[in-house]
């Protein structure tokens, strides 16, 4: 019995619709699970893979390991009580949830947020972007067997978390962007300390570029891996760096400006090749743009001013009937909250659109076919997905 067909174009045979004929009983395929504990899947989800040799033939993604039912929980909580919940929807980037939820409530309730609070929110979102990119970069490097840059970027992330700690009182779950504004003003000397961290980041990112992006092994493994055709962007709902790496400059900060982004000077970073290398490089350059944006924000932010709009009594807060969709550009693309109020104290429906839902499920299943098993983790991290936001 022949276990291996040398001419790969003949095996496995295809069905009429182009899909592979896979017979697990033939002993020519291996059925393995990658995840939910595998670090390469960036969280609690799993890939059910069928491989032939070391090549992936078929992939089915599985979620459900992290379902906490946030959307349903919110329907039984007052608006203010949803505020500590939403940040937990996406662990590495709580602030986009806080912002979208707050902005949705403000829009439905007709609350005008003070100028200073808008600046602080912009700052917090960019800091979150920075922290998230830095952590992700460690994962991306690690999934390619590259431990060192991950150590560097993760300690830089810790420095950002230190700044979050002194600004918001929390390192991971900040619970800082409240409907109406933010919970407190910047602490004394905060700007200076943040600027020092930015300098560190810029310095280390040069090393990261040298060690990781100018590394021949890294290039060999990532160039040509998981190419996203630009024509898929719309039907698959691909957003953020994954779309920008394909040459399509999608960026909510530009396309549908919010907060203080219209007053900031930046251009979305795009790439051409649309492979894993380009996506990683687009994110690296986007990270540097974020550093620049934070400097601009600190420069332009007014020193004084109210940071919180007067709210009605939050324990009795009824939000007028209505619905809205609020979106923001997170590190992975478009983050959105669809909110419906029936005029009561409790949200009727909150639906969270996390970009990972499209990227980690449909897109991953498509891209992974034909990829070497060793590169599956690299492909996954190149899509930058966070399973918690898939399961709300």
């Amino acid at each position, binding site marked *: 019995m022949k276990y291996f067909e040398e001419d790969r174009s003949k095996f496995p045979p295809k069905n009429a619709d182009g899909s592979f004929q896979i017979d697990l009983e033939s002993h020519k395929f291996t059925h393995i699970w990658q995840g939910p504990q595998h670090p390469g899947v960036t969280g609690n989800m799993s890939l059910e893979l069928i491989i032939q040799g070391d090549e992936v033939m078929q992939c089915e993604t599985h979620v459900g390991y992290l379902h906490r039912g946030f959307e349903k929980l919110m329907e039984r909580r007052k608006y203010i*009580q949803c505020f500590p919940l939403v940040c937990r929807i996406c662990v590495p980037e709580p602030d986009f949830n806080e912002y979208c939820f707050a902005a949705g409530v403000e829009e439905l309730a007709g609350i005008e947020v003070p100028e200073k609070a808008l600046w602080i929110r912009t700052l917090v979102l960019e800091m979150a972007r920075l922290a998230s990119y830095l952590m992700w970069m460690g994962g991306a490097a690690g999934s390619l067997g590259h431990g060192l840059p991950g150590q560097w970027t993760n300690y830089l992330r810790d420095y950002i978390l230190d700044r979050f700690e002194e*600004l918001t009182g929390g390192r991971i779950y900040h619970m800082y962007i409240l409907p109406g504004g933010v919970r407190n003003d910047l602490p004394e000397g905060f700007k200076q300390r943040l600027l020092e961290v930015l300098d560190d980041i810029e310095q280390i990112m040069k090393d990261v570029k040298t060690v*990781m992006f100018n590394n021949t092994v890294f290039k060999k493994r990532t160039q040509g891996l998981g190419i996203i055709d630009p024509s898929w962007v719309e039907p698959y709902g691909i957003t953020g760096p994954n779309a920008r790496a394909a040459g399509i400059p999608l960026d909510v900060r530009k396309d549908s400006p919010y907060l203080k982004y219209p007053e900031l000077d930046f251009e979305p970073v795009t790439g051409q090749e649309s492979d894993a290398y380009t996506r990683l490089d687009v994110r690296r350059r986007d990270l540097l743009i974020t550093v620049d944006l934070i400097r601009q924000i600190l420069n332009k932010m007014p020193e004084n001013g109210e940071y919180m709009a007067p*709210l009605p009594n939050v324990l009795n807060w009824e939000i007028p009937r209505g619905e809205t969709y609020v979106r923001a550009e997170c590190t992975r693309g478009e983050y959105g909250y669809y909110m419906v109020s029936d005029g009561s104290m409790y949200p009727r429906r909150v639906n969270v659109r996390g970009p990972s839902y499209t990227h980690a499920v449909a897109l991953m299943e498509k891209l992974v076919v034909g990829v070497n098993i060793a590169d599956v983790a690299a492909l996954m991290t190149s899509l930058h997905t966070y399973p918690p936001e898939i399961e709300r």
Partner: protein
Amino acid sequence: MKISDILQPLTAWKNLVKDPITIKDPLNRVAAPRYRGFHKNDLETCIGCGTCEAICQNAAIDMVPVEGIETKDGDSGLRPRIDYGRCCWCGLCVDICTTGSLTMSNAYQWIDNDPEVFRFIPGAEEKPWDTADKGYKRPENYTLNPLKRVSMEELNPADRIQGFMEIVKGFSRDQALQEADRCVSCGICVATCPAHMGIPAYIEAIRNDDLNQGMRILYETNPFPEVCGRVCTHKCETVCSIFHRGDPVSIRWLKRYIADQIPEHEYAAILDSPQEETGKKVAIIGAGPAGLSAAYYLRLQGHTVVIFEAQPEAGGMMRYGIPEYRLPYDQLDKDIKYIKHIGVKIRTETRVGRDISLESLHKDFDIIYAATGLHEGRSTRAKGSDHPKVYQAVNLLRDFTKGLEIPYEAPVIVIGGGNVAMDIARTLARLHMQKMGRVDITLTCLETEDIMPADREEIVEAREEGIQIIPGYGPLEVVSNGDTLKGLKTVRCVSVFDENGRFNPKFDHSDTQFLPASIIVEAIGQGMDLSYIPESIKKEMKTDARGRIQVDAYYQTSLPWFFAGGDIIEGPDVIHAIANGHTAAKRIDHILRGEQ
């Protein structure tokens, strides 16, 4: 493949000569000053309002009794217990804390083998972080509940002094909704209200725009919403949890709002009707707040209730004591009419003891409830105070309500610092304005302004109306020349009460004043007239050393058929009178039904 792509990564080796950035002693790392760490609670400042428990979305907070903390007015006696198995460290409990007692330290390490210890009462259980000065505290000027009350529109002094128009205009719907929104429903007020009214519940009914429900809640404990919505001494507001940081919720005005919005003819459809007739009969002496309140609740139970009232109209002090600019008679009538509507009979101009004897009432009725009030003025007994031009405030107020002429010759001196003194001074001020076009009234009292028993707004408004107030002086002598009154000599009062808190004024005789006056009105307190109780009955009744009737917690005297309540037992206060009328009614109902 470029050769540089192979060589460049080797530059990472330069880090070998750099210092490590790892924290050497992570266990002793100090968190940021704003860090949301373990909770602290100042048990003395905390009032156990439970808003922390209400806002906690994890149900991590329970309000529990704590040893050494007593329940008292404005303090539930409970304190928050936090379950760190549930807490998510959001700090909303700190943000909403009405007193600011609950804060967070910046401590974040607590290691123990026993999972039970992580449910603890901050402040009551000693912890190393109790003394930490850093940690999350609610920032200044940041609040999750509005602290400023909706201002109440009032007639301006120039307009209101022209007549007896009601001063307070009442809330509009928008204003009432906005004010009702401020309530955090802690319920601290309920315990302090003598009638234990369902305050958070009726405020919630306002928020829900369900005023019929609000009305039902009001009548559960108080059949005088129009009266109490205007002249209640609002003890509830003095303990309102919001008062610790801002203005208390305008509970009194919100009550008035509910009653004002519902026309009289709709009451019957909204409120409960009396139960089936029981055939039992109760006589009530005095149609004041206590008597009418007892009558209302007894009638609801199906008993036959007859009130005997000496004056031409029902209302007692609410009508014959409180001036119309504070409580318009039509509003009082609205409350009384509904009590009559459910079948309470009121026999006016029937003075018990003169027109009908107590013995005959005892014969004809199963139970008697006496709430005859304090209608006798007390004299200062200062030298010369028996002069015919020295009057008693209660008498003048009563005569004025009846439409009789009352003396007003300027200048007038009112002696007394309570609300009755303010009532007569302000009534006379209006008369002065109508008759003379100017106000010439001086009010003097023993107490200094900070301890004057009158409501603050009464003092402010009296001054706005042109009344001169000289606090801190006691009457020494009424100076007269035959029938003509010359004035009042006063002496500075050094202290009103002795160290035991008893009324025992001390004077500084080196500091005296002479105030010219044509008439003097004494308003230093009222006494009761119990002459309608025959000596034979009085002898059987238990009284204290000063001859006051002794009652139990249900206002029952030592004679099982005789109940007494209202001002004669509790002292002058409308809401106390209404409350004890209700309490007595409950007990009387039990007795009439043969229950224990």
